[in-house]
């Protein structure tokens, strides 16, 4: 260790350069790990901390005493608790006001939410616990006052997280919790509140399906029963972060590969440079083991502080964005201890990687005969010398390709990093299209009008309107798999005039009793053409449809069903439907909107699936931007490091060029040639990798139920290639500047030794 330390002190500049490279790689790793681990484990962490129930059953108001007997007889039941949920309650705090408040009146027993600030509601009147999204959005905390509908002002005593839904304002509703005991003090005329929710905790979570099955059988007689399982909740919530997690995992792998290749290349180059010195050591009797140990110790000494700094900064940079996404999903971030453990593990890995990368070439070199080592080492002569056409740029390309294996590795790594950037760009444009362009979801109508169905003819008669029809929409759950939520969409006629997701199997529906189902729903319920789709609408009895087609719908993760409205209206006669308005090609949308307004409608532009989630999209986009910038830095680092290694190894060649009169312009051309020799094939690799591997894999991973257009466009490919060339120019400019400051004789002396 003393020898290793002395070796580093003898060349502090070189050690600092190596350390900077390690710190950059570790920074990338820190960002990737922090985001990936945080998002991948967010739901489980929140579910565990909140003690999320295995099954949630909703039904019309009942006396809890009537339901309790049935619940107690359920097998595999560990605990249960009743709730009374009241929707559309007005919440007010200062200038903030929301008509979509949801009040949960909680009695005794387990809660199913985690109190993350303050305390839970007690038996006293006038206390409320609010969900974290509302607390953050309205800047409320324990001690503040919130007006809760008819219950009036209540003191906020705690802030809670329950991962059974995304947070306000990503969800349009905001949830608050009041205690039954407190409300009974406030409204003493009632003896007890009814219940319309029961939370069931399984004794054995692995066998929660048994509990669900018996619960369904026991629900006979209760009206409007719907079940939602913990797994169903997970699938709903995790879809939102699936793409980001998949991207970040891919990115983390690339970051590790990059760090490994570059660190190994740096170590190899350093050993090559010191071959003669190693030869002297070996001639003096130093064993190969001792030589290897010193190299490994030097690597570890440089890597330990550099990796710690890089991982720490990367972790801190990514923590804010990750926490914001988790908060929007109503999930909890890992604690400082968990994050530190992950980063500490990564630190150990990086230090081991660097030490190993330094030790391996040293071990190989030290086992060679000392006489060979004393002759020193340079780049192996090429099999065929070139004629020297192409000037400095071509010469630069020849210098960087002299080490074929490393050249291939750098091209591959840079190509992978650029492919991730391409994927991020494609994802960003997809998010924009999902947000702004309903056609991405297969929607062909662009406006809705709040008018009754019998006024559709008036709307159709407006100039610029191609078609108009009532669009019925209802949330439901699958009756055969009660944890599966879905959205039912119905048009009186041909729905493909207004919505036409691609048909994956079967045919289009032709009449009442038939249904086209999304691939996501088909996968969840095992449906195919010819199967029966049994659903339970929000407040109706079970409805059955024959599946005639499967469509690749993106909306609601493919958990949709297209039907004719007859059966829906029979079950729920009060179901309202705005008019979907499809415009003629090239029609003036503003003029149509004005005409609709004159008819007394409230025309609304149709967004994508995420039309109401602009805040969440902004957070997600911010996180993606952070990742993209980090990947861009990785590309720049890979280029600079690759050039630095080439220059370090070919110092003599560069010095001879300078002695022959090469000025900074010539050096820039030389290095630009070297850099372009790396970035041009890397750009080709990136485009091919994104198109053939990453985009299809990510699309499958994120949305196997739909055709997710994640392939990069020509413009994006050109932009990334241009950016790579720009980075090449930047890297070569910087390297040429550094090189020109170094005395020519330094390179000559080093080569001459």
């Amino acid at each position, binding site marked *: 260790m003393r020898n290793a330390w002395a070796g580093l002190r003898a060349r502090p500049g070189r050690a600092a350069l190596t350390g900077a490279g390690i710190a950059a790689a570790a920074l990338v790793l820190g960002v990737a790990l922090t985001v990936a681990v945080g998002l991948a484990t967010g739901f489980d962490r929140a579910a565990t901390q909140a003690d999320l129930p295995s099954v949630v059953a909703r039904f019309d108001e009942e006396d809890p005493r009537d339901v309790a007997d049935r619940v107690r007889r359920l097998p595999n039941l560990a605990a249960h608790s009743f709730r009374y949920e009241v929707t559309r309650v007005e919440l007010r705090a200062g200038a903030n006001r929301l008509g979509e408040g949801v009040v949960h009146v909680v009695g005794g027993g387990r809660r199913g939410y985690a109190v993350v600030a303050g305390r839970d509601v007690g038996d006293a009147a006038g206390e409320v616990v609010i969900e974290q999204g509302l607390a953050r959005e309205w800047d409320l905390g324990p001690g503040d006052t919130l007006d809760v509908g008819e219950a009036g002002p209540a003191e906020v005593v705690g802030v809670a997280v329950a991962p059974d839904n995304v947070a306000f304002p990503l969800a349009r509703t905001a949830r608050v919790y009041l205690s039954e005991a407190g409300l009974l003090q406030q409204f003493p005329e009632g003896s007890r509140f009814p219940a319309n929710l029961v939370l069931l905790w399984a004794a054995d979570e692995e066998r929660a399906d048994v509990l669900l099955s018996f619960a369904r059988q026991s629900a006979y007689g209760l009206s409007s029963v719907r079940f939602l399982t913990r797994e169903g909740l997970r699938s709903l919530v995790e879809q939102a972060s699936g793409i980001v997690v998949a991207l970040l995992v891919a990115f983390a792998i690339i970051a590790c590969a990059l760090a490994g290749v570059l660190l190994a290349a740096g170590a190899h180059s350093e050993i090559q440079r010191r071959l003669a010195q190693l030869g002297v050591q070996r001639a003096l009797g130093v064993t190969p083991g001792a030589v290897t140990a010193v190299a490994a110790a030097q690597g570890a000494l440089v890597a330990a502080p550099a990796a710690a700094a890089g991982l720490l900064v990367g972790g801190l940079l990514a923590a804010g964005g990750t926490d914001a996404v988790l908060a929007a999903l109503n999930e909890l971030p890992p604690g400082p201890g968990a994050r530190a453990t992950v980063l500490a593990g990564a630190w150990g890995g990086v230090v081991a990687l660097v030490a190993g990368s330094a030790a391996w070439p040293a071990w190989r070199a030290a086992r060679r005969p000392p006489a060979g080592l004393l002759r020193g080492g340079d780049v192996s*002569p090429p099999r065929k010398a070139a004629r020297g056409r192409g000037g*400095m740029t071509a010469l630069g390309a020849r210098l960087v390709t002299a080490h074929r294996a490393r050249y291939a590795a750098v091209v591959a790594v840079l190509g992978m990093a650029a492919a991730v950037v391409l994927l991020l760009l494609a994802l960003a444009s997809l998010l924009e299209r999902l947000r702004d362009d309903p056609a991405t979801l297969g929607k062909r109508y662009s406006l809705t009008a709040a008018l009754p169905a019998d006024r559709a003819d008036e709307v159709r008669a407006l100039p610029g309107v191609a078609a108009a029809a009532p669009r019925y929409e209802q949330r439901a759950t699958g009756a055969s798999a009660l944890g599966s939520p879905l959205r039912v969409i119905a048009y009186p006629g041909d729905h493909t005039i207004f919505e036409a997701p691609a048909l994956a199997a079967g045919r289009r529906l032709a009449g009442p009793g038939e249904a086209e189902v999304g691939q996501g729903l088909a996968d969840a319920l095992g449906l195919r053409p010819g199967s029966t789709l049994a659903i339970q609408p929000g407040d109706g009895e079970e409805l059955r449809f024959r599946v005639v087609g499967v469509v690749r719908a993106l909306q609601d993760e493919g958990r949709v069903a297209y039907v004719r409205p007859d059966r829906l209206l029979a079950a729920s006669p009060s179901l309202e439907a705005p008019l979907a308005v499809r415009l003629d090609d090239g029609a003036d949308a503003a003029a149509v909107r004005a005409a609709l307004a004159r008819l007394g409608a409230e025309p609304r532009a149709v967004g994508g699936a995420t039309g109401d989630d602009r805040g969440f999209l902004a957070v997600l986009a911010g996180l993606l931007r952070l990742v993209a910038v980090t990947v861009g830095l990785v590309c720049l680092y890979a280029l600079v490091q690759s050039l630095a290694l080439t220059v370090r190894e070919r110092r003599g060649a560069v010095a001879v060029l300078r002695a022959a009169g090469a000025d900074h312009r010539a050096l820039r051309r030389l290095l630009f040639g070297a850099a372009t020799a790396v970035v041009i094939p890397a750009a080709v690799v990136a485009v091919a990798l994104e198109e053939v591997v990453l985009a299809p894999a990510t699309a499958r991973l994120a949305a196997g139920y739909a055709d997710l257009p994640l392939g990069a466009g020509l413009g994006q490919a050109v932009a990334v290639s241009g950016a790579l060339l720009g980075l090449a120019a930047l890297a070569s400019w910087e390297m040429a500047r550094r090189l020109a400051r170094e005395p020519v004789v330094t390179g000559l002396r080093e080569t001459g030794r």
Partner: protein
Amino acid sequence: MDPRDASAPVLLASNLVKAHGTGRGARRILDGASLHARAGELVAIVGRSGSGKSTLLQILGGLDRPDDGWVEVAGERVTGASERRLSALRRHRIGFVFQFFHLLPELDGLANVLLPATLPGADRAAPARGMELVERLGLSDVAHLAPHQLSGGEQQRFALARALVADPPLILADEPIGNLDAASGQTVLRLLRDAADQGRAVVMVTHQAEATAVADRVLRLDDGRVTELQPGGGEPLETAHDAP
């Protein structure tokens, strides 16, 4: 000034000082060294190992900067010049020949010779001159071989052709035959002599007696100062910095 004017010195250096190391470990390699070389003259610099011969040559060629003193090549000041100006000076006025040849392994012999001709701002006649040099130096048959396929003598001849391709008025050679066998060494010395006879100033650092034999003047570097020896190695006749 016409660099090929035999009466005018192509190279002038005065009172060069250069120290290596710092503090108590500092050592003056050059301590007031002065010399000159005229067109058509081959000057050999001798001195014991570590006396600073190579350092002096590098300072003369603008590859290193002195702590004090000045150097002029073909009437142009080297010391104090910007890196850009120094590059141009090396491109047009100075040719270097190194002990270890320093041919680029990726390029064949001819491409190594033509390397200075590919630099931005190079003389347009350089490529033709390079081809002619390869022929004149008897290297045509091996022009397309890689450096590692060449003998030491052939490599040094290619290196010499590379130094001459820009037709510079000054050639600086650092131990040009230090790595060659006797026969190859003689060939290279003859070529250097020819280069001087064609009107160039050639300054050669060497520790080999056969190299001093072809020189017009022999200078000795001792204790950081340059003194001129009589042909045959007698006592110094005059100190170089007394010369014009």
